């Protein structure tokens, strides 16, 4: 794990740079020197008002000391505790992450892995229960076994059987044993090599997500002027690890749209305009005469570059199922579990065609504030008297003005400490945290 600096370490470094004594800084902030010492050694989490006071005393912006990755880690640790730990010292999660960042990262990573494996296990179990090929194979084995058992027990039953019948039953047993051999061999072969190429099957959407993430959600091959449609197909074909058929189809749909977006909003021109417009999607849509959802996707697809803020993107259908997700620090949506309905992504679904801009905050004092731009539009043009299914797109960037009031959002009810939230659908599995503010 890279040695990223925790908030306390950064505060300490800044204080030493300024030649301030611990006791002096503590006095200015109205806390005891020993408490400041704990903070500086990452033994106590800090955020909110106290962080602002300390930052002011250190003549720096509070954001200079916070770390989005740290906040994200905390969220993941809480989620891990909520999912599996009954006896976890939740109130000391910050202490833990502060003192053992490597171990904490490992716990979070293992929890993510466990969740992924559980999903795959469910998929595998469904496959066992519903796969017609497996059912047919088992049926063959059982039928042959039934016939053999019944016939053999007639032969050894001790009652007199005439020679014709005996010959006949011997023949049948021979025939059925042949069938049983073939059927059991087929069954073993089937169980050896899953139809989709081995390994634990991933859902196609997850395969595509891993593929896109590996490419950094940016595809230079599709950025050339007049990049041909075959360029998208070539990218899919060259995927490593190779994509399954369903995943390849999905990826191709995604990349085709990417190519269209890139042709409509060429990279060089769009990059310059985005920087000039402060990455404001509305200004860019007007400047290029482009659809707003296209601008949102295009902004998210810009390459990682210091001139661009970090960007996350989520696309969902009318049922809220995630079709595409590009996570960023502080922003992710659970796949296969119910997300927080307060994300503007979902609110946009009830206001088709109406762009929404919202500043949102996850629970916790140090959680990052995010700027969300969301819009739901019909997937295909609507016909007369025929509703077209909606697709909502949401672009997420760090909030530029931390003073803005932020709407609460959460990591999903089970992991969310906002006990009194009006959108709550099930109780939180977490002990409520006393430090959670802005409920």
């Amino acid at each position: 794990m890279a040695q990223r600096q925790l908030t306390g370490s950064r505060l300490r470094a800044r204080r030493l740079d300024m030649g301030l004594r611990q006791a002096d800084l503590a006095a200015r902030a109205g806390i005891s020197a020993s408490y400041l010492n704990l903070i500086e050694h990452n033994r106590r989490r800090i955020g909110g008002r106290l962080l602002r006071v300390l930052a002011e005393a250190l003549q720096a912006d509070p954001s200079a000391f916070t770390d989005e990755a740290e906040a994200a880690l905390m969220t993941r640790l809480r989620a891990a505790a909520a999912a599996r730990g009954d006896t976890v010292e939740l109130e000391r999660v910050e202490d833990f992450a502060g003192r053992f960042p490597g171990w904490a990262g490992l716990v979070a990573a293992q929890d993510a892995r466990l969740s992924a494996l559980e999903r795959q296990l469910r998929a595998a179990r469904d496959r066992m229960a519903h796969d017609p090929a497996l059912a047919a194979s088992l049926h063959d084995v059982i039928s042959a076994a039934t016939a053999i058992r019944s016939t053999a027990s007639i032969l050894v039953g001790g009652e007199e059987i005439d020679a014709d019948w005996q010959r006949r039953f011997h023949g049948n047993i021979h025939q059925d044993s042949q069938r049983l051999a073939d059927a059991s061999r087929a069954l073993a072969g089937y169980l050896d090599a899953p139809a989709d190429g081995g390994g634990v099957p991933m859902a196609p959407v997850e395969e595509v997500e891993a593929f896109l993430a590996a490419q950094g959600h940016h595809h230079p091959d599709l950025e050339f002027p007049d990049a041909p449609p075959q360029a998208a197909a070539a990218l899919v074909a060259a995927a490593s690890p190779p994509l399954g058929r369903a995943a390849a189809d999905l990826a191709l749909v995604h990349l085709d749209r990417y190519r269209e977006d890139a042709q409509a909003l060429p990279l060089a021109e769009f990059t310059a305009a985005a920087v000039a417009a402060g990455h404001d999607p509305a200004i860019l849509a007007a400047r290029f005469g482009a659809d707003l959802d296209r601008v949102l996707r295009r902004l998210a697809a810009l390459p990682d570059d210091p001139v661009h803020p970090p960007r996350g993107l989520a696309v969902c259908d009318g049922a809220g199922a995630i079709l595409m997700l590009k996570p960023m620090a502080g922003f992710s949506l659970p796949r296969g579990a119910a997300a927080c309905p307060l994300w503007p992504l979902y609110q946009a679904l009830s206001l088709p065609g109406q762009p929404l801009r919202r500043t949102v905050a996850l629970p916790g004092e140090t959680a990052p504030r995010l700027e969300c731009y969301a819009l739901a539009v019909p997937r295909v043009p609507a016909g007369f008297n025929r509703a077209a299914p909606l697709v909502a797109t949401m672009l997420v960037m760090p909030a530029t003005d931390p003073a803005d009031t932020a709407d609460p959002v959460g990591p999903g009810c089970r992991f969310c400490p906002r006990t009194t939230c009006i959108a709550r659908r099930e109780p939180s599995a977490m002990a409520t945290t006393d430090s959670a503010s802005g409920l």
Partner: protein
Amino acid sequence: MAKRVLLIEDEPNIIEAISFILSRDGWTVHTQSDGVTALDRVRALPPDLVILDVMLPGKSGFDILREMRADATTAAMPVLMLTARGQERDRDLALKLGVTRFMTKPFSNAEVLEAVRTMAGG
């Protein structure tokens, strides 16, 4: 007069073995392999008892049982159902549809004989 049993099953060697043990036990055994025409056969005979496999070509044993129970002439006929899948929901469905007895493959001959004798006697 010997009692009549209709065996609705599509595996020839299972048909042969069951026919043999039931005939030896004094039954007159009729067999039927196709699911679609099975109900007509039941009505035409009609047998004293039906042994019905779940997986049949053309029509499932469950559908045949459902139709038998809906028809006044066959509603009370004893039915022994055979299935290669012992799952709870198959058993539940069979019971809900009004099966008399339910047996999973591979069965033993003694089990079948015991079931058939009990059902015919009762």
